């Protein structure tokens, strides 16, 4: 282990998206980027994934949309967003130069997913597209696209065809076999995988004797899900060759490093942005410091650098 200081190369390549460093921020937790300007110089991080977009602007669920949980929170925001056209027209231009933006897309039908991707294709400033597969497939009675291989496959195929932009697929954790879903995406030509989305969960108000969320169910995020996310990233890294963006409960540099060691090429910070809007920058700098301390000249050499136990 080297103690000498040298310039660490922080850059990584996430399925064709070249990132200054491996720390992104997660869709839905970073607005459209500009909200963070007072707290964080966006050039300190690798980039951000914008709030998921639908074809038309949508309003979300009635309140309460949020419930606190042990080391986590539940949200049921639903589809609320400005719509893809307003994003391109108003939100993208407001983002400073030199900031990598990944657009996130979700819809209720495959054709609509593809149409949103088409509109994003070739728009300057869109470095990549992330397909949020955790959206319920309306015709299948609430099951998410990301929960069934035969819904996910066609979705990836259609969105792959819709644009040349690097395509990440964001996987749902609410599955028996995450590796199977990853293989489906790889087979259909995705450039990378993001995982995990929030875990389906429920919180109850015992005094009112009803679910806290007006939507009843919500997505659990935050440190509570981190060990689950790490497991899934580790499983997926062993199942496919695609680069992985690790997500789930990252609250500091150590957490991000765990994902890298498990095989993630980059990470996304989610819920923690709310608690400390500068956290993603601190995570990026902490990774560099760790690489220095442990003698890794390139942060990408940390990816998958996990030692196994003797069997």
């Amino acid at each position, binding site marked *: 282990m080297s103690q000498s200081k040298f310039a660490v190369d922080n850059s990584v390549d996430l399925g064709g998206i070249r990132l200054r460093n491996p720390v992104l921020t997660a869709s839905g937790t970073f607005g459209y980027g500009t909200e963070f300007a007072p707290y964080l110089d966006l050039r300190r991080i690798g980039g951000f994934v914008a709030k998921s977009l639908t074809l038309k602007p949508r*309003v979300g669920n*009635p*309140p309460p949309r949020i*419930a606190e949980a042990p080391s986590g929170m539940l*949200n049921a925001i639903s589809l609320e967003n400005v719509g893809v056209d307003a994003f391109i027209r108003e939100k993208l231009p407001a983002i400073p130069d030199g900031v990598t933006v990944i657009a996130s897309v979700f819809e209720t039908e495959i054709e609509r997913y593809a149409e949103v991707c088409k509109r994003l294709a070739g728009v300057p400033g869109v470095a990549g597209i992330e397909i949020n597969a955790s959206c319920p497939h309306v015709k299948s009675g609430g099951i998410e696209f990301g929960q069934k291989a035969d819904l996910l496959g066609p979705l990836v195929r259609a969105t792959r065809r819709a644009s040349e932009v690097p395509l990440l697929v964001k996987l749902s954790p609410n599955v028996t076999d995450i590796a199977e879903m990853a293989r489906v995406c790889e087979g259909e030509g995705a450039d990378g995988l993001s995982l995990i989305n929030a875990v389906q969960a429920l919180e109850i108000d015992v005094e009112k004797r009803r679910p806290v969320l007006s939507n009843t169910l919500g997505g659990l995020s935050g440190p509570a899900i981190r060990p689950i996310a790490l497991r899934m990233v580790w499983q997926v890294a062993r199942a496919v060759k695609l680069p992985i963006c690790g997500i789930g409960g990252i609250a500091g540099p150590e957490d991000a490093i765990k994902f890298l060691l498990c095989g993630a090429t980059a990470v996304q910070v989610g819920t923690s942005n709310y*608690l400390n809007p500068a956290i993603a920058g601190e995570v990026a700098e902490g990774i560099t410091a760790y690489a220095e301390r442990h003698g890794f000249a390139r942060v990408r050499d940390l990816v998958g650098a996990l030692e196994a136990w003797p069997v």
Partner: protein
Amino acid sequence: MVENRSEGAANRRLVLRVEGWPGFAPGQFVMLSPGPCGSASRSDPLLPRPMAIYRAQSGEAERSSVRLEILYKVTGRGTALLSGSRSGDRVRLLGPLGRAFAEPDPGEDAVIVAGGTGIASVYELAARLAPRMDVSVLLGAQTRDALMGRDDFSKLGVRLQVATDDGSEGTPGLVTDLLDAAIDAKPTACIYVCGPTAMMRRAAEIAAARGRPCVVSLENTMPCGFGVCLGCATPLSEGGFALTCRDGPMFDAARVAWDRLP
């Protein structure tokens, strides 16, 4: 943390020394860590708590630091943990956040109606308006003990009236019962309201019936406080939602879809 003392019932006053404070406008709030930040991080409870800025006084010596006061009530886990913290502890704070109370139109007076912890949101408004116009303040609480900030308000030179549910101080009953008479006395007043939802709704109805403008300060679960999580939706009468933290917490009462508040 400079001080954290009981103010009667479950209420407490927190005094924080804050460096680099940019100043604030009445009605703004901060996000406060749920309990002191100890020598190591803990992820439970996770979310910061929104708390109105009661008032902020410049430090004597150092220009950049202020004494920031917060009046809070211990209601759940986060506020209970906060109540256990002591002078010298550190808390994490983000703010000031949210929009300020809109000032009354020229020539208007102000009637401020506040109940419970809502009182903490309106002190600064009363303090800033009092030198410039005639201000009536109606404060409500369940009991005399639970009444926050009474002594501070009585030093402001405002017309102060109190109602308690049990009649242990002031008029027995709801503070909104005093509103009609207050409007009688100031027919051109703008009405400012902060307190429990039912109370704000009632006050808004009275103001509407009397044709007076009414501003309410709403609460909501707030994970971020600065408009990014979309968690704090307030349903609007025109349809759709506003974000309580970014578009509020102050709203024109007529814009709020009271029926669709949880």
